[in-house]
Structure formats: structure tokens, C-alpha cells
């Protein structure tokens, strides 16, 4: 980011972090640059805001946080299932309850995510420099699908056998099946609990950071009411 900054930008260091926001990147000491980048792009007044535009009045705006809540419920219940092992929930009542909570958490996550996705499409939420917010949101949706898919593959029952046997053909046709064996419950346990969930949480974190950084997209026609914090920068034309 710093490469494109105006060299005439204010150079007074911030009172807390002692950076100006225009620190150049250095391989020998990248910390000041990273600190400046984070302070400039993710200030706490944006990350933990206590004010929002008055147009944020539709219940549809709660779909994002509800999807996040579904993800949190799924992760917590899933962690408890994983602690018990890959198949204990078939015979243990606590495990079965956690599995049911996990199941419904995933269902709600996708329900809220789908509405969130459709809502943001129809309000054109990518406007005003929010392209990466859109991309990371779709990526989170795709990773969510992969995560739930691998979860269905590691259930160690008939369902997972059947889904794996059916899914292997597409994986093999695409060449992925050579290294991603969907019929291996152990590999799917790793994919589900470690790989896809970690990637999903990472992308969701970036998505949330971008949402907080840019703020909620203004209604079409009201873009001019959103002005750059630094007056030396101007709005791009609105798509």
C-alpha cells in the first residue's frame, strides 16, 4: 500500500503507535511497515465502531452477523465432536447432541450466508472500493461448501460412504482424486477439522476486516455522502 502513497503525506508520528502511515517496506525490519499498514487500514474506530449509517435499518443487514454466529456455533460444537474422535457421536448421547447442534449450526450458517450473498448482490455492495470484500465473501462461501462437504465425508456411516463413492468420480475426472481421496475418512478428518476450517476462518477474518475498514456500502445514488478520510484522495467513479 505504501508504494502508492503521496510522499507529501503528513509525517507526524501517531501518539500511540509512533508511525506515520507512510513507512516504507524493508525486508530487514518489516514490523514498522506492518504496524503502519494495520494502523492506517484497520483503525480501532472502524473495527469497533459504535455508529452506523441510518440507512442500515433493514433486518437483511443482520444476515452477515447471523451467518458468523452460525459459523461460531458450528466451530465450537465441531471442536467438541472432534475431541471425542471421528465416530464416537454414533454411540455417545453427548456426542450425538453436539453433532445435532453442529448440523443445525451449519444449516443456519448456509441459510444466512445465502441471504447475505443475495442481499449484497442486489444492493451492489461491491461499490466504493469494496471489490476485495466481495471476493473474500464469495471465497468464504466456497470454502464453507468445501468444509461442510468434507464434514459429510467423515461421518463414518452409510451417508458418508455413499457421498464419497458418488463424489469420487468428479474428483477423479478433474485429476484431484489422485491426491484427494474422498473415500479416506482419515484424510477427510484432517481436511475438515484442520485445512478447510482454518482456511475458512482465515478468509472470514479478512472479510470481516475489509467490511469494517470500508464500512457498509451506501445506497445507490448516495455514494457522494461517503467521503475519503484523507481529503487529498478523491472518489473513483461509481460503477
Amino acid at each position, binding site marked *: 500500500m505504501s508504494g502508492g502513497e503521496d510522499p507529501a503525506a503528513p509525517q507526524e508520528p*501517531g*501518539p500511540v*503507535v509512533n508511525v506515520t502511515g507512510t513507512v516504507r517496506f524493508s525486508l530487514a525490519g518489516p514490523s514498522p511497515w506492518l504496524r503502519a499498514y494495520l494502523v492506517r487500514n484497520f*483503525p480501532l474506530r472502524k473495527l*469497533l*465502531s459504535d455508529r*452506523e*449509517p*441510518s*440507512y442500515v*435499518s433493514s433486518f437483511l443487514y443482520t444476515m452477515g452477523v447471523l451467518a458468523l*454466529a452460525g459459523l*461460531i*456455533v458450528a466451530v465450537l460444537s465441531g471442536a467438541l465432536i472432534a475431541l471425542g474422535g471421528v465416530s464416537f457421536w454414533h*454411540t455417545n448421547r453427548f456426542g*450425538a*447432541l453436539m453433532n*445435532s*447442534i453442529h*448440523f*443445525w449450526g451449519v444449516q443456519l450458517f448456509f441459510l444466512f450466508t445465502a441471504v447475505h450473498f443475495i*442481499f449484497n*448482490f*442486489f*444492493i*451492489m455492495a461491491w461499490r466504493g*472500493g469494496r471489490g476485495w470484500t*466481495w471476493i473474500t465473501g*464469495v*471465497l468464504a462461501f466456497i470454502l*464453507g461448501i468445501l468444509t461442510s462437504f468434507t464434514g*459429510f465425508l467423515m461421518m*463414518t*456411516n452409510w*451417508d458418508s460412504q*455413499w457421498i464419497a*463413492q*458418488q463424489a469420487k468420480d*468428479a474428483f*477423479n*475426472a478433474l*485429476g484431484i*482424486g*489422485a*491426491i484427494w481421496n474422498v473415500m*479416506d475418512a482419515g484424510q477427510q478428518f484432517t481436511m475438515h477439522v484442520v485445512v478447510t476450517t482454518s482456511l475458512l476462518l482465515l478468509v472470514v477474518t479478512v472479510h470481516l476486516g475489509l467490511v469494517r*475498514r470500508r464500512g*457498509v456500502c*451506501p*445506497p*445507490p445514488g*448516495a455514494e*457522494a*455522502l461517503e*467521503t*475519503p478520510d*484523507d*481529503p*487529498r484522495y478523491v472518489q*473513483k467513479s461509481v460503477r
Partner: protein
Amino acid sequence: MAKGSKRHPLATWRGPERRYDLVAEGTIAVIVVAVLCIAAAILWGSPDAGLTYPKAPRSPAGQAFSAKYWDANNPSDLALTAVNELLGTTTTATYGPPFTQTGHSQEFLGIAPAKIAKSIFGLTLPVNTANDFVLAPVSQIVAPYNPSVAAAIGLYKAAGGDLTPGVPGSQIASAQQQTWLGNYAKALALSSAKVTATSITVRAGNYGPAPVIIEAELLTADNGSLDGYFQGSQQQLRTNTYEATMFFSDGTLWHNIPQAQGVSGSQWGVMNEVWNYPGQVWLWLYAGLYQPPILNPSTNANLDLDVGLLMVLVGFLLPMFAPWIPGITRIPRWIPLYRIIYRRYYTPSAHGRTPPAAASGPPAPPPTP
């Protein structure tokens, strides 16, 4: 980039605002969703139906398909499938990579990703259906304690064939073995054949050692040792049961169950769950792409690859880059649902000004972080 054209990462809404609390909103959302999930879990549980389906024997929750289940419910199907595995004519035996060296690898524009993957990684899941599904388990489990079975195995192997892992199905059985097995398969298909969980009675014929071997296979399935064989290995315990899954799926019973449960491919497959439970509804596009007549789902030998590539294109890339695709970005303008969503904002009396209004006056100084 010229000065003035770069967008500053931070911008602030200068219009009307209201107070709220991000942490409080998030906490309430988690509590509400958690309560909903716990209530749904208590009321409805989650799908774990096992092998339950109409007119089937009672199946305990979470039951998986096994050789023992197969043998108990359709032993003739198991016997005939085992014969075909020895012959090398099943779907698995002729599949291609990553299971066998040759077979149909699906192609698009002459490119077969499965072959490319094989050239890079090798044959990663090699299967020899005759050896892996029949001869090896019978040799290991029954032959050491049953001289007649040991002799039958010896006679069968002496007749030729190729038991190398991953060998093409056409090379698995020799001409002599094909004669024995072909005769035996025909005899098994006759109505006079009587197959129980542990015995086979067919009319007399030139079957070589096949009846002894297949009957031993049924015996190992009946007492559960065949499942133990598939779930273990010579050295370790393992979770990779792909050989068992491939063997089971070569039979008929395997495909009858999902049909009865309403989750087969022609019933939109993996996006469904048993009974009234919601399944992987989010896979509607993937499951739906197997249905359009334009893809010839019943005859298209490259259907899985076509669907996989369409998913990458339509399911992943299209939504991800929708904001940069002309036409797609106009859809919300053509169907202006945002006017309903923001109807209060667009109503002048709602906040005492006429929207959309441009910012007036000089912009505020940049706030501190």
C-alpha cells in the same frame, strides 16, 4: 498511479447516523443462533439413519454398509460381484486412474486431467479387483485353516492371470480363468441357483476352483472377517477403506439403498438427506448440473468432468468476479430491489433531507486512527 486517482482505503459516511454497538450485536446474534440450534437439535436431532429404507431390515443408527450386511441381505449379489471382480469386468476393474493403469479417463477438448495427474503422482490408489477383493482376503483368512480352499487358490493362480496392483481389467483373468468364471456366472444367474449367506448350490459344470473360492468369500463376509480385512492392513490400523467402498459399489444392493432412500444421483443425489432432513442444499448447482438434457446425462462419458468444469466456471469464478462482468452488474439496476430495501432512506420525510444528496462543504480533516 497519479495523485488524486488513488482511492484512500478509509472513507466515512457523512450522512445521517445512529448509535449501535458492534460487540453487543455480535453477542446477541451468537446467543440467538445457539438457542435456535440447541432447540432444533433437541426437537429433531440430526440424520444418522444408517441403512434404513422401506421394506429393509431394521438398521441401527449410524450403520455403515459392510460385506456382512451385503452377505446377509443379498448373498447372490455378493457372489456374482465377486465372480466379476475375478473376471476383471466390474466398474472398478475398468475404471482407469487413480485405480487402474488404463480405462476411460474423462476428457475435455482432448485433455484428460486424470491422466495428467497420473503422470505427475503415479497411480496413487492401485486396485487389482481379483486379488484385493477376493483372492487375498480368502488366502489370508480361510486358506491357512482350510486345505481345500488353499488348494483352490493354488489351482486358480496356477491358471495364469495378472494380480499386479492397478493392472487393466482385461489382463486380470487368463483365458482358462475366464472360462471357469464365465460358466460360473451363468450358473449363478439361473433361477435354479441357490445362494445363502454361507453356501452356494448350482448345477454341475466346468467351474474349476471358482465355487470353492466364492463360497469361502461368502463365509468371510458372513462372519465379519472380510470387513476386518478391509478395515485393517498387514501393518497398521487404517481409516482409508476405499477398496471396500469400491468393491461394495460394484454390486447391485449398494445402489438399491440410495434409490430407496431418495438420495441417488437421479434424485439430485448428494444434496439430499434421508427423510425430511435438509441435506447439503448448497450443492444444488452441482447436483442440478447432472440433470440438464443438453449434457446428455445418460450417455455422456465425460459427464463428471463437464460438471466439474462448469462448477469451476459457473459456481466459483462467475460469482467471485460478478462485479467486473458487464451485464451481471446491471441486474440489480434492472430488478431494483434496493429501492425497497432503502425505501425509508429514499423517502425525504424519513430523515429530513432529499436523497441522494451530495456532500457539501469541505471534507472533514482525516481522523486519527
